């Protein structure tokens, strides 16, 4: 099963190494990890997407992270109302004929073309995991030359009432 865990850490040197080292030592499988500063100076937040076998391992992930001296807070937000976003840069092969088609495909995703070359375009898209997956699948037939994704970062919603994440990326509009 897949869990989304946020980890608030003191921004000490080596702290990222500590966390990833822990995942290696305990054989927890990371799908993605993002890190960045928070609203408080000296404190960073990581968002880790981790694959675990069962509840027991999921609990171990939280407990082992909590044991780290530099870790201030660990939360499994998988079952909470969250907003989660990821940014992807996708370089797609183009020909004069396909360029227009690609434009049509990416538009509903609110993606933008940020670089154009003779035989390719680079597209930037921001969204949750599923949205990005969906767009990549649509672009795949054209030939993806390069792909770079940041991994997801997430916040719990201000109001925990389940407001569904508006699915703004239907190609039917």
């Amino acid at each position, binding site marked *: 099963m897949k869990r989304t865990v946020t980890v608030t850490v003191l921004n000490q040197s*080596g702290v990222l190494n500590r966390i990833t080292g822990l995942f*290696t030592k305990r054989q927890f499988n990371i799908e993605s990890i993002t890190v960045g500063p928070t609203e408080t100076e000296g404190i960073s937040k990581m968002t880790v997407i981790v694959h675990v076998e069962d509840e027991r391992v999921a609990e*171990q992930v939280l407990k082992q992270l909590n044991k780290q001296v*530099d870790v201030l807070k660990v939360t499994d937000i998988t079952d909470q109302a969250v907003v989660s976003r990821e940014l992807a840069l996708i370089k797609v092969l183009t020909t004069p004929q396909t360029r227009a088609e690609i434009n049509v495909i990416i538009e509903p995703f609110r993606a933008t073309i940020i670089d154009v070359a003779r035989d390719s375009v680079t597209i930037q898209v921001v969204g949750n995991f599923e949205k990005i997956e969906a767009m990549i699948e649509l672009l795949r037939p054209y030939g993806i030359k390069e792909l770079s994704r940041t991994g997801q970062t997430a916040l719990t919603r201000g109001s925990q009432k389940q407001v569904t994440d508006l699915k703004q990326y239907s190609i039917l509009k």
Partner: protein
Amino acid sequence: MNAKVKTKAKPLTQAMSGADLFIEALKKEEVEVVFGYPGGAVLPLYDALYRNPIRHILARHEQAAIHAAEGYARVSGKPGVVIATSGPGATNLVTGITDAMMDSLPLVVFTGQVATGVIGTDAFQEADVIGITMPITKHNYQVRDLKEMPRIIREAFHIATTGRPGPVLIDIPKDIATTLGEDPAFVTEVNLPGYQPNTAPNVLQVKKLADAVAQAKKPLILAGAGVIHAHASEQLLSFAEEMNIPVVNTLLGLGSFPSDHPLFLGMGGMHGTYTANMAMYEADLLINIGARFDDRLTGNLQHFAPEATVAHIDIDPAEIGKNVDTHIPIVADAKEALEKLLETDLVAPDANEWRIQLKESQKEFPLWHSEEEEGISPQRLTKMIHDITNGEAIVTTDVGQHQMWTAQYYGFNRPNRWVTSGGLGTMGFGFPAAIGAQIAHPEDTVVAIAGDAGFQMTLQELGLVAELNLPVKIIIYNNQALGMVRQWQEAFYEERYSQSLIPCQPDFVKLAQAYGIKGYSVTTEEEAESVLNETLNSREPVLIDCRIKPKEKVCPMIAPGKGLHEMIGVKP
């Protein structure tokens, strides 16, 4: 030696070097002794030590220094302090740090580092000690700024000794040790928002445990080293006696409950007693106090305590539910939890039948060994050592058959007298650990029981024993083999003794003599008894090479992958 340098070479201002600061901080922590070995990167620290009276024990190898610090910490309850130089000095500590991490021993380890300006350039004797020790320490630090040193040292001692104890490492670049700084403000308070170990039990869970006790028909206590760390032996005894509940110990928990007590069932696990293991198998309530359900204890988890409601008291929340599903989790210091439990309205369980069943099992399946008269029986030898020391000695072991025989037959009745490497199973541990234990308790009889192979991993410390005239008693259970390996090859590899028989052994007696230590070699139990009688209570070091029956096995056993109820070698 230090007397003539009384006037400190301090400049006129109040400036102090990093090294002076280090010494001041150790004094503030009331460190009485440090174990270490000098080298280039720690020369400034050693220079400061030269001018300051903190006792330093010069081991002959860094691995031995840290094992000695572990032995010291194990029997004294105080943190063991270690110093080693950068690069090879630091990497020689890796086994000891891991050992301390596995067995929850409080250590503060200082390593030298190359100067800050050249870190990362593969400088002479540079090693990425922070990276290397990250997964084997409770926490580690590199001092990047002199101003940070007092805070870091205070935090390190705090982290090492509180919550679940463990090793903390501080890496000090050479230039930091020589830099002069303002007289710093020494901190006494620690401010670690990410480190707040909980010691007080949740009252509702304690109540739940009390209810479970009242309901149980087949209750059992499993007591581990957490009881010893928490100084909770007395409370354990009261609880067990008041509720009339039988007790099993883990390997590292031996001594937390008197072995001669009628409620004691012995050690559980791979080489535990049949009754201890069957009790865990059949119990309907298993109360784990300060043990971590290690695989050598549980055997195949599928067959571990299948009938039991499991209660687990542990200071480390991550241990609860890690290996065994737990119904009553109590995150707390063992002593506080037991005290709270004893204050509750406890109702003793109706477990008379259970106790009778266990007593009968103990009668029918006692620990047994070959009664053959010829040669020295290691089990009888261990009982002999017990008798001659009145069961009062501090006993350390190395790892292997002799370790299991000592655990089975010495009979520990008090906590903090038993020193062994449990989690990591480190050969070479026992002898230097005995040195550390003797330094902590100079008046007590300290016996180091070792295998002939493991002793050769750290035997250079004979030099240290001789130098300090430490009355450590080294007893080698000499079976001319890597005995435990040989036993497994006999049992599981059709007697293919691949690399487990040592064709060339030193003359251990002469070896001892080379260091100026009395040595004896004994080949019969009569000889052994007379030499042990003569030497065990003496005030000088001695080495006794005991030629034990080379083929003796450790029985009974749970084979790897098997369950608690599948013990073999239960009867002659």
